[in-house]
């Protein structure tokens, strides 16, 4: 049917849709497990696996030299996590301080986290080593459909002028889906404001380019309202406070917490998270053991209701309690230019005569109030629903995939998309779309590696790649260390 429609067909064994860190990690594991380049294709609109991540970290005020939010052992370029990024940077910088930090973390110092630049550079080295660009087919993926004879067709629109036809089909026995976030969602009241007043200048999302806000604040004094209580809010605050210090500005910051955390919280002494000054504090996006310890095991063994219960306790918006941020906020409170408040925003409207924006808010205690600001930066970073992504929506509608209780893709223990198998073929997924299943930390470097290793184990049982026992693992690690091709 596909050929009859005049769409040229390319064959490969496994097609990975996305070409971000999720795809990269699976390709890395498969190459290390002996799969030839010719057996894999990665279909992506991005030139490099880190392109989307670089963009999102950049706009959300995490420039390359800043430190990210994962631990020393989470190295997307190195599935063994050894030597850790701390050792890597300590060696590169000739800085024993970093090695000391990872030794005494988190007892005497903050957790070590690598610089974003370190991640980019090491990813590039590993991408070269595994021949990433030989496997890349650029374009926009339209859909993944099951074939009558088993396996899948993935329909791709290459960039204009690259192929004769507008579309090509990739026929493969296995498909891996790692398309990242389905999209960004705005807070309802902010979306309403932007649409009603057609103003995309004063109300911005932290994940879209908004450098103009910082530039304007340099030329005239202003008030910024920051909404949200996660890592991105922390980063935006840091940028505003750094600029204030560096350029001697008088920026006033109103920080709106929907939920204002006043102290440590949780159901029992065994489950108590640190918090205060509005924030819930946590080093990483989940408690550390969710990435591979006790909490991971608990999630794995729980039934769906138990998982939902656990998620309620350990999930939610958090930020790391970094010494530097604590100091900045303390200075802001003392200097009376940083104003944290608890409130729900009911409505935002223009103040009139170009005096900025008015936010109508109500607090938990029922008090109502109004805040005037020049800008609002939305740091709530809500992820859009899966149906916003064309390929995922198509899969739910025609591909047999279904949602789990969290509204994400239901996947099994090997990250196989439940209901989407096709004859001897199989569809796997990793990343944010697979949240709410047996493993909570899917949207992280370690989560991508977990998924990649588990998918590869399943593929090994199906005869697609070799297993990765101690001998092969050591041999491959030596190659990695020497920078030799896999």
């Amino acid at each position, binding site marked *: 049917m596909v050929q009859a429609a005049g769409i040229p067909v390319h064959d490969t064994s496994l097609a990975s849709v996305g070409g971000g860190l999720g795809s990269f990690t699976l390709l890395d594991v498969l190459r290390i497990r002996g799969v030839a380049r010719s057996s894999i294709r990665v279909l992506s609109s991005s030139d490099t696996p880190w392109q989307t991540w670089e963009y999102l970290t950049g706009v959300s005020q995490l420039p390359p030299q800043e430190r990210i939010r994962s631990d020393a052992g989470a190295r997307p370029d190195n599935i063994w996590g*050894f030597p850790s990024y701390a050792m890597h940077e300590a060696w590169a910088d000739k800085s024993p301080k970093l090695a000391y930090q990872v030794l005494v973390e988190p007892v005497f110092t903050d957790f070590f986290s690598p610089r974003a630049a370190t991640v980019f550079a090491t990813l590039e080295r590993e991408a070269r080593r595994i021949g990433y660009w030989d496997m890349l087919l650029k374009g926009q993926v339209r859909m993944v459909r099951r074939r009558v004879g088993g396996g899948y067709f993935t329909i791709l629109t290459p960039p204009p002028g690259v192929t004769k036809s507008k579309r090509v089909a990739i026929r493969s026995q296995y498909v891996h889906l790692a398309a990242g976030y389905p999209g960004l969602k705005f807070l309802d009241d902010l979306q309403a404001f932007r649409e009603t007043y057609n103003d995309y200048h004063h109300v911005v999302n932290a994940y879209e380019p908004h450098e103009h806000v910082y530039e304007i604040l340099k030329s005239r004094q202003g008030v910024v309202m920051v909404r949200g209580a996660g890592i991105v809010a922390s980063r935006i605050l840091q940028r505003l406070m750094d600029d204030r210090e560096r350029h001697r500005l008088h920026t006033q910051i109103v920080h709106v917490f929907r939920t204002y955390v006043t102290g440590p919280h949780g159901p029992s*002494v065994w489950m108590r998270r640190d918090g205060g000054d509005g924030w819930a504090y946590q080093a990483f996006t989940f408690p*550390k053991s969710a990435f591979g310890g006790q909490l991971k095991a608990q999630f794995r063994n729980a039934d769906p209701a138990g998982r939902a219960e656990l998620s309620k306790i350990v999930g939610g918006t958090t930020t790391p309690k970094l010494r530097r941020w604590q100091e900045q906020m303390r200075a802001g409170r003392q200097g009376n230019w940083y104003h944290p408040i608890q409130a729900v925003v009911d409505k935002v409207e223009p103040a009139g005569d170009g005096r900025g924006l008015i936010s109508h808010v109500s607090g938990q205690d029922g008090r109502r109030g109004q805040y005037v600001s020049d800008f609002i930066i939305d740091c709530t970073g809500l992820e859009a629903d899966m149906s916003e992504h064309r390929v995922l929506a198509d899969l739910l509608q025609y591909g047999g995939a279904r949602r789990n209780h969290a509204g994400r893709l239901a996947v099994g223990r090997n990250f196989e998309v439940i209901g989407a198998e096709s004859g001897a073929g199989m569809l796997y997924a990793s990343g944010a779309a697979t949240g709410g299943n047996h493993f909570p930390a899917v949207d992280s470097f370690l989560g991508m590696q977990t998924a990649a290793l588990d998918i590869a184990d399943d593929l090994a049982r199906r005869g697609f790649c070799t297993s990765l026992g101690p001998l092969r693992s050591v041999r491959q*690690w030596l190659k990695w260390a020497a920078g030799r091709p896999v």
Partner: protein
Amino acid sequence: MIPTLGGRLQTRIFLLATVGVILTGLIVPVLPGTSGSLSQTYKTAYLILLAVAVVGLGWELIYHLLMQFRWDKDWPTLLGLVTILPEGLLIWLLLDAGLIPGVDGHVDASTFVTMFVVVWLGQWLFANGPMRVLFIQWRLRGGRIL
């Protein structure tokens, strides 16, 4: 590290049975303060190692309990190192009181301390690096090997 209880116990036994056994084998001939034959010293050293393993399983239960007070349910690298103090002290007291089965006669403090520190450092370093290379899933499964 982010161990589960099963992972802790498995890792403890595995490390002592491999790194511990090898390092003990290497260090015994050069241990200070020994008297008696080399084979006698070997026997004593391995019996002590066995005691460290058995008593260590009890320690792991305590560590696991303590870890429950931590939100992250992690076991910081530094703790893996400084627990040498209580563990070493307990074994030394047992040794001194003649309570380690099979070990009779006096063991010099210098002999014990040298052996204990070498084995401890060796297994700590191994757990923080090469172990991850040998067993790719080890760090993602709470330290379980099986």
